[in-house]
């Protein structure tokens, strides 16, 4: 969980400084987000259990989008996440963000 709080902190900073929140979620498509989420839930347990990889169910959509943009630009550093984010465009990130925000977080 500690890692996730760090992520929250950075994401909040990014949210405030880099982009307006409504822009982050432009073009969001819930159905497309559900399809794209298949790549995420191989690692991020859909049951909301953190055994070494953070829970992303129920994460605030703007925070989610900020984090993914930070991985995309290299402002946050993790080889798997940077690879995942590198091929997601803004609409795809927004779609994932609204999908996971709607998932019940059970942690």
């Amino acid at each position, binding site marked *: 969980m500690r890692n996730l709080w760090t992520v929250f902190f950075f994401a909040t900073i990014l949210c405030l400084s880099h982009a307006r929140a409504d822009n982050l979620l432009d073009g969001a498509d819930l159905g497309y987000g559900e*399809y794209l989420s*298949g*790549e995420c839930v191989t*690692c*991020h347990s*859909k*049951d909301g259990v*953190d055994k*070494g990889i953070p829970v992303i169910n129920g994460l605030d959509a703007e925070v989610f989008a900020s984090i993914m943009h930070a991985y995309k630009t290299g402002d946050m550093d993790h080889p798997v996440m940077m690879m995942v984010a590198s091929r997601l465009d803004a*609409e795809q990130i927004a779609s994932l963000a609204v999908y996971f925000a709607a998932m019940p977080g059970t942690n």
Partner: protein
Amino acid sequence: MVTKFSRRQFTGGILAGTTALAMPSLAFGARPRVAVIGGGAGGATAAKYIAKDSKGAIDVTLIEASKRYYTCFYSNLYLGGFRSYASIGHNYYGLSVNRGVNVVHEWANSVDTAAKVVNLGHGGQVKYDRLVLSPGISLKYDSLPGYSPEMHSRMPHAWTSGTQVQLLRSKVLNMKKGGTFVMVPPPNPYRCPPGPYERVSMIAHLLKERNPTAKIIILDPKPKFSKQGLFMAGWEKHYPGMIDWIDPDTHGGIKSINATSMEIETDLDTFKADAASVVPAQHAGSIAMAAGVTDGDWCPINPANMTAKADPNIYVLGDASVASSMPKSGFSANSQAKVAANHIRGELTGSRVYEARYANTCWSLVATDDGIKVGANYSAGPEKIDVVSKFVSQGDESADVRKATYQESIGWYEGITTDMFS
């Protein structure tokens, strides 16, 4: 937020709907049927996603002989004592109860592709509109001189998880003091490219604790292997002097294997083993051969949707498929299953079909808290699945990074098994 139909909806909707309406089964209101053969990372995931996302509109039957499925991934960690055997076993109740998948614990004997019927071991039949084949691998017994199914109990391949891995662990634990373990990895292509080398790492870990003067010899048919630099640096660091990797130029090839005398003969020498794991060459699971969708040892697929090149009604997932640069791994199979599931729903119910997106990451454990990983994501090219981007652990990473990588792999195991079975 605006929900819209995007540029990604390139084959779904009206087109697929028209196709579906032309099908007699739908015209009379019957539910379209999908049969899935094989309940591993490809098949279980495909069955789940088709059932879940179609919300009952598609009748899904999963054909899997085992009631309890032991994952191949993490079986090495059981060997090394990092996981219990029970912790890598899973059942199909979740798919049955939560998702409404009809789970049939039978062997699939043959497929009649003209009649679209799977014939089961005990005489029953499962009819399908679309068939998903995810049978994993079968072993090529004739790939090593002297190798035979009877040798499994003497020199376990332990390449399909389950009791073979239990047997291998007990053989390593019962080695004489200062004895020799011989590992014979398979030639390319094979299931789990880093697997033989993680296995050696885990056996070295076990021996370092209990039998520190023991030796491990790897007689490799390949001149190089996955994450080689990282593994070899790890062996030097954690198990100095214990592991000897011998490449084919040096040993000259395996000439014969004698399971009775526990001797493996090469041009270089005859190696006498106190315990051994011999993993032969592999081909697509036998049912894929029987279904006629193989070309040589493996099944060519269309990269956009994982349909077999030989039959548009059959999808081939995971180890059995020719997925070009995607390794034969549980992660790859799970990823391919989601692309296929999305396409099958589009074909049978007219739902939106999105572009194929594939991914894989393989974590390996070298020693306690020393995890390494390699991964890539992929897209569908016209002829093959192409790499989009990739990464691999670095040789100069700190102990903290390696520990975090191991912890991440535990999280991944939880994630993928939840994704497959719940």
